[in-house]
């Protein structure tokens, strides 16, 4: 047992350092994909203090809409725009039907409301578009860079690199939106106190509609990338569970935290699975991600970049 946990993995790393690098890079790339989902959670939490459990369902619904329109013969770019508009329309509906009547309620009430939205959206999406798998090919090959592999022995996947670029682009745009715009600054105020924000003239309805729209569009990006990796199907909604440890680790209010959290979780779970998985019966990566997140919680309950909450009594 001691050998399997404390000796063999390190000998393996020492003997095949290139393979370790490969595992690490693959983990980082996977982490970027988790971050993409986590971003949707962060945007809504940052602006409204609502933990939106429906983010996974939004990813699925957005991807189903995109691929459904494309299959109906709509031009893919037009499908993309129409899907984004559908997500904006969805945000309007959520604000009007679900959020507005709940202003100034406890966060747990909002959380339960998003649970309801999750089930509704899962069922509604499948009712409209069906439960079958839909293929989605966006033209990015899911294969290694063979020149790099021949030269260095490192297998880096083209699709993973493309996803990382898309994710980085989104982060830059979102970071700019939250820090440089008037709306971005208003978001913090709304998150802190709904009533106070309303009293100083911040349009709560508009802010909520904007953040749910942005989260929907981020969900669309995540849905397209994950959908072209796995096929667009119900299982996409479950990727939300891969984002949770990322959020715990990175903090619920930090966009850079979501990215860094994704990278740590992605690389950590891959290394653990490859080097320690066998000694523990295999398939440890899912729960290992949560263990890493919980360990971080012990030392930084607010996450790596989360805001430290000080309440006076």
């Amino acid at each position, binding site marked *: 047992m001691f050998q399997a946990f404390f000796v063999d993995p390190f000998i393996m790393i020492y003997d095949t350092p290139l393979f370790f690098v*490969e595992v690490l890079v*693959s983990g980082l790339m996977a982490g970027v994909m988790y971050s993409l989902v986590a971003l949707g959670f962060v945007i809504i939490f940052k602006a409204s203090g609502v933990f939106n459990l429906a983010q996974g369902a939004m990813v699925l619904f957005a991807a189903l809409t995109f691929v459904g329109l494309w299959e109906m013969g709509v031009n893919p770019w037009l499908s993309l725009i129409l899907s984004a508009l559908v997500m904006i329309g969805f945000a309007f509906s959520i604000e009007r039907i679900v959020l507005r009547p709940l202003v100034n309620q406890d966060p747990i009430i909002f959380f339960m409301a998003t649970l309801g939205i999750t089930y509704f959206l899962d069922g509604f999406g499948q009712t409209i578009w069906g*439960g079958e798998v839909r293929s989605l090919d966006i033209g990015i090959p899911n294969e290694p860079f063979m020149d790099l592999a021949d030269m260095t022995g490192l*297998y880096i996947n083209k699709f993973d690199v493309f996803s990382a670029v898309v994710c980085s682009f989104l982060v830059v745009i979102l970071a700019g939106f939250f820090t440089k715009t008037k709306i971005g600054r208003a978001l913090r105020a709304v998150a802190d106190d709904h009533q106070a924000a309303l009293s100083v003239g911040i349009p709560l309805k508009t802010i909520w509609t904007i953040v749910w729209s942005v989260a929907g569009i981020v969900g669309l990006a995540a849905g397209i990338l994950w959908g072209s990796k796995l096929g667009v199907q119900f299982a996409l909604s479950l990727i939300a569970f*891969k984002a949770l440890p990322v959020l715990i680790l990175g903090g619920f209010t930090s966009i850079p935290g979501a990215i860094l959290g994704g990278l740590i979780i992605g690389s950590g779970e891959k290394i653990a699975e490859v080097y320690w998985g066998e000694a523990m019966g295999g398939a440890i990566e899912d729960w290992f991600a949560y263990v890493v997140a919980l360990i971080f919680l012990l030392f930084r309950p607010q996450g790596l970049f989360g805001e430290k909450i000080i309440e006076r009594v």
Partner: protein
Amino acid sequence: MKNLVKKITIVMLIGVVFSLTGLAQAAEKIYVPMLTYTTGPYAPGGIPVDQGFRDYFKYVNASGGVNGVMLDWDTCEYGYNTDRGVECYERIKSKNGQMGVAVFPLSTGVTYALIPRTKADGMVLHSMGYGRTDASDGRVFGHVFTAPMTYWSQASAITRYIGDQIGGLNNLKGKKIALVYHNSAYGKEPIPTLEALSAKYGFKFLKYPVNHPGLEQKSTWLKIGRQTKPDFTIIFGWGVMTQTSIKEAKAIGYPVSKLIGNWWSASENDTRPAGAASVGYKAAGFHTIGKNYQLHKDILAKVYGAGNGSGDKSVVGEVLYNRALVQGVIFTEAIRAAQNKYGNIAINGKQLAWGYEHVNLTSSRLREMGLGGFMKPLKITCANHEGANSLLIHEWDGKNWVNPSKWYSPMYDVTRPMIESSAAAYAKENGITPRSNCN
């Protein structure tokens, strides 16, 4: 007050008359509670099977029923969720006071949960190509049927196929065979067989569990593709897991032609979403693929021609659709066998179990049913609820399943003693006295 009592009495009498009429009507039909999943993460597998079942039942009724007795069914959607599956079973197991005759859960988890319940309800549980393998021992599991094949038979037949690819089973010595499996009761089923075969033939057996639903498998395939490099990899996946396995194998440079999916990792829903990565992927089946059989033509004419199809017409002939037809054919043949003994009546579950134990689907009988060459003949007996059958391997060419291999029979000399020993342990654990009048 008197008037009120009178009115209530009349209403109650009308209710009793209606329910008795319903009972009388229902008793003329054979009722089947149908558990389905057309939503949720495993819907892509559940939808074509559900469509195939319904189409076949409609076809049977459109052809005059089974010896004149019509089939009746209610469905319950359970989303491949075991507790909801059990709840569904309890909700629809009977109709108008008439108990269903058989249930086909299409889930190993639900099968395990329903074994004692169906026994208590006097109903047949047919887990075709899934479920509890040791239930093939009819002496212990009198009401459970696993025909035409089980996971253990499948694992041994695939091993035989692999042996054939390298010049014989004796050449397996020193080779590496990996199993990438859904980390559930279902996925773990073939492990005892492969361990036994590994000991017998001297190949190294490597196990790689994948957690539900199998969205992320990068580390698994890094180990396979870059570290252990097995000569062949068997996949026991379901739902999104299979296509992810194929894609990750390709992404890491592991040859897709070395992958062999089991029959639940063998449908168009597994290969199409993986796109070009799945070209060359191989998978098992205990029946052939396509719709060039008389039964398919009849279904298209009588069911779809009448505008009564249960889904998209293009699905007719796909792998999982055809799997449902196998299920339907065995079921109706069991009804016919029971009717030979009990008369052309709406038989009950216990009579159906007798019928199942006397199913004899010969080549000529399969031809009569419009399925000549579709599957190997099948004979179920009292002791052997699996029967004896074979599988074949197809290859995906990017659009269709092609190049069917020859038929490979399981190594029953290995699996049958394991089945009997496991069933005996179950019998002991549950205080069951095995039937002694089976031989």
